[in-house]
């Protein structure tokens, strides 16, 4: 097991470097010249020759003429930077946001909390609904509720989440006025503690409902399919023939077997909503990672965008690792270390 984990982590690190190199190269496709930017203010007070001289010196000083791999290693913090220190991504230097005029790490902290908050909440909500519903549909396959759910879920996973958002805003915020249209908290209010939490929840309710609803379709179908497969196994017939109570058959004999595909789904879905919440955050004006990312891209603040992109990459890589490892935990038949 340990050997396998180490192997997986080694592979993960390799992929991380490949992906980050890819990103860095993409990022370098953008025509920009920090040296020229820095000298822009002094341009008028210098003669062309002196300016050229200074420009060349500065370029050398900033290391802009070096090979892209060297610059990448410097950015990553693998080799010392121009000042002779190891100070790159690996040492916690995520760069400087031109748009916010702050270090990226400072900009990212509060949106990250928001995103994690709504994503975890949406996960709990979605799992709480889809798993019982999926099991029920599988057990009562072909029944009225199952047929209704089948049609309903196809609608759920066909319609893009922003259309669901528009419809829900129209129904719940505009017509019924139950929830605010967008935003993160009552403007001007200075709540603390429990009240702050409730106010947040009030504002996040609609985005959460939309996220949950958007994921109901696909997940319910998946849980249902996994459960139907599990219920058609021979040992279920045996259990029933033995006279095991139906509840025990479903929840203990069948559900455990259905759990493996479901766990895969849950993790990949959890990763999906991290990037999928880009749309929700943008639609509901929530200051999360997704809307920050869009803001970075729109305002050509690529250092910020790159840092957030790396965050997404790390999340998805770690998620893939957890997914692999969880097979072994959920299903004792799987020997992943082989």
């Amino acid at each position, binding site marked *: 097991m340990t050997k396998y984990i180490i192997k997986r982590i080694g592979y993960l690190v390799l992929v991380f470097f490949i992906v980050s190199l890819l990103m860095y190269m993409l990022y370098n496709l953008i025509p920009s010249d920090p040296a020229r930017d820095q000298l822009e203010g002094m341009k008028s007070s210098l003669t062309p020759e002196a300016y050229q001289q200074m420009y060349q010196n500065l370029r050398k000083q900033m290391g802009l003429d070096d090979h892209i791999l060297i610059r990448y290693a410097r950015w990553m913090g693998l080799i010392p930077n121009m000042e002779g220190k190891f100070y790159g991504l690996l040492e916690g230097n995520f760069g400087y946001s031109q748009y916010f005029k702050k270090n990226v790490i400072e900009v990212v902290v509060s949106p990250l909390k928001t995103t994690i908050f709504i994503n975890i909440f949406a996960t709990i909500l979605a799992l709480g609904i889809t798993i019982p519903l999926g099991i029920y549909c599988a057990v009562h396959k072909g029944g009225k509720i199952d047929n209704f759910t089948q049609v309903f879920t*196809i609608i759920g996973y066909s319609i893009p989440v922003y259309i669901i958002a528009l419809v829900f805003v129209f129904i719940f915020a505009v017509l019924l006025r139950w929830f605010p249209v967008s935003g993160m908290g009552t403007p001007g209010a200075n709540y603390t503690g429990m009240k702050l939490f409730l106010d947040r929840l009030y504002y996040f309710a609609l985005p959460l409902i939309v996220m949950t609803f958007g994921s109901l379709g696909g997940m319910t179908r998946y849980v249902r399919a996994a459960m139907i497969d599990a219920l058609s196994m021979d040992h279920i017939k045996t259990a029933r023939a033995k006279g095991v109570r139906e509840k025990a058959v479903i929840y203990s004999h069948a559900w455990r077997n259905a759990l493996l595909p479901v766990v895969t789904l849950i993790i990949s879905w959890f990763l999906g909503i991290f990037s999928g919440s*880009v749309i929700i955050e943008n639609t509901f004006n929530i200051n999360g990672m997704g809307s920050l990312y869009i803001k970075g891209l729109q305002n050509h603040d690529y250092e910020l965008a790159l840092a957030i992109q790396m965050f997404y990459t790390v999340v998805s890589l770690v998620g893939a690792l957890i997914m692999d490892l969880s097979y072994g935990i959920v299903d004792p038949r799987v020997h992943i270390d082989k």
Partner: protein
Amino acid sequence: MTDNQKRHSLLRNLFGNRNKEIDIMTEEQIQSPGRMMLDNFLHNRLGMTGLIGFLAIFLFVLIAPHFVPINLGESDNTQTNVPPTSTMMSYPKEMVHNTQAIASGPTFGVGCDKDGHTYTWGYTKITDVIDMKNIPQEVLDAKIVDVAAGYDHIVALDEDNHLYVWGSTRLGQDRIPSELKPSRTKGTPEIIQIEAGYQISGALTAAGNAYFWGNGNMADIDVKKEYQGRVKKIAVATYNYCLLLDDGSVVYAGLQKNNAFTKVPENLKSGVVDIAASGDTMAAVDRNGKITVWGNATHGEKNVPETDSKPVELYGGRYHYTALMENGDVISWGSNSHGETNVTASVNSGDIETVFAGFYQNYAVTTSGDIHTWGLKGHPLGTDDLGRDILTRIIHGGKTTMTVGAIAEIISIIVGVILGALAGYFGGRTDMLIMRISEIIGGLPFLPFALLLSAIIGTRFDVQMRMYLIMVVLGLLSWTGICRLIRAQILAEREKEFVLAAQAMGVREGTIIFKHILPNVLSILLVQATLGFATCMLTESSLSYLGFGITPPTPTWGNMLTGANNSIVIQQYWWRWVFPAAIFGLCTICINLMGDAIRDAVDPKSLGR
């Protein structure tokens, strides 16, 4: 096996002679697997609904663009946020055989009958509070003899020469000059003509004096004194006016020196019998029937058609003119974006008495009092914030969305199938390499990565190239699923005897993979392709919705919804998001239903055998 047969055999099973029952082996012999899949699919009601729905939408967006051309640069500030309506020319039936005057606003019509009653129709709501429908009580009480409609206001004249203005009056639309008001010394001046432009209005008195009032910031509403007392007719364009004098000459009487109208053509010094104005041009017709158009003609207003008969009267819309001929026929020319120059044969039966034209509408009144209309009836699905027709944009947006989705899916299938087949057949190092690449690409967070690519590379290209870029990006990011699937299928297939036989016969490896093995996995590929097509369309629309896909003015179903996420649009301008969202949702639902049905059809397990 049809339903009928099925029921039949069930009856036989229960009560009939069992010898005739087709057992499963016979059935398998009769039906080839392909035939069975097709039958399964055709009997799946949801799947067929999906197929029919998808085909309908697909043909609609494929064929309709040829009939509904789109002008990408189009924007029309007179038609912004108009809800779905087709009543812009629906005059009340009380007006028939009894028409006194009709005037057209951008989206509404106003008219009065010979009894002095005033009516409005069409989309009369100008802002949240201003509605042209709310005719002031004093107007309803008065006996109205003439009406004029501007951009957002209406002027009406009663038989006692009182002027009434309603609608938007914020910019002085109701600031009627004192000369036109009743005074103790001179009495009320008799008014013979009223006209209206963009927030300006004009009136002509029987004494030959012309007066203009309204928002003078952009419009030239002053009149040079030397022409007063000699004016026979006035014509009001959007911001300007010109006068026809009693000596048959046309003059620009405003104080502005250098606009498109100040240089009145030389041949209009005498002999002019009628003048009219469109939005940006003016036209005059002389005694001989020669029509001269001057001004800023952008929509073909100067292309006066040749006619046998002599035009005698002119009427101007926003970008078109209509002329009444000596023989009672009418012709229209200029812009035809809303059908405003489509004079039908039924109109030209030679008995037109007069025409009322304005903005995009024409009303022709025959000598018997019937009213013929042509021009803009309304927008079937409303317009957006730039005054563009939603239906046109849905049609063309659908074409873009489907094209992008289809090509992206084709790219991903080609890449996925080739790499999957190679990995599956050769195994070993090739397999290792391809699967690692696919894992890396599959592991990339999809949406953020597509956003990044679009933002970084997309800025260098123009709209067309950007569209191709989006297709390629989507295609190259979404092939991993198909690749894995094909690989797994090929791994299973390559162990079978027929592959060994082919190898023994010395068939080349490429041929074995693509000709012997691949046809066996085609059905699964079809399912993937169908579902993947929907996914690609969804992704493209999400990118466009966020502003990183295909950018306006090129419409897609995604970018039509950009900016719809605020309560004002959601509530008040519901047609701007309901229709694109509905057709897009319907389309993806149909594709997914179809994909599910195909999967059920090709999967023998679903038959329960």
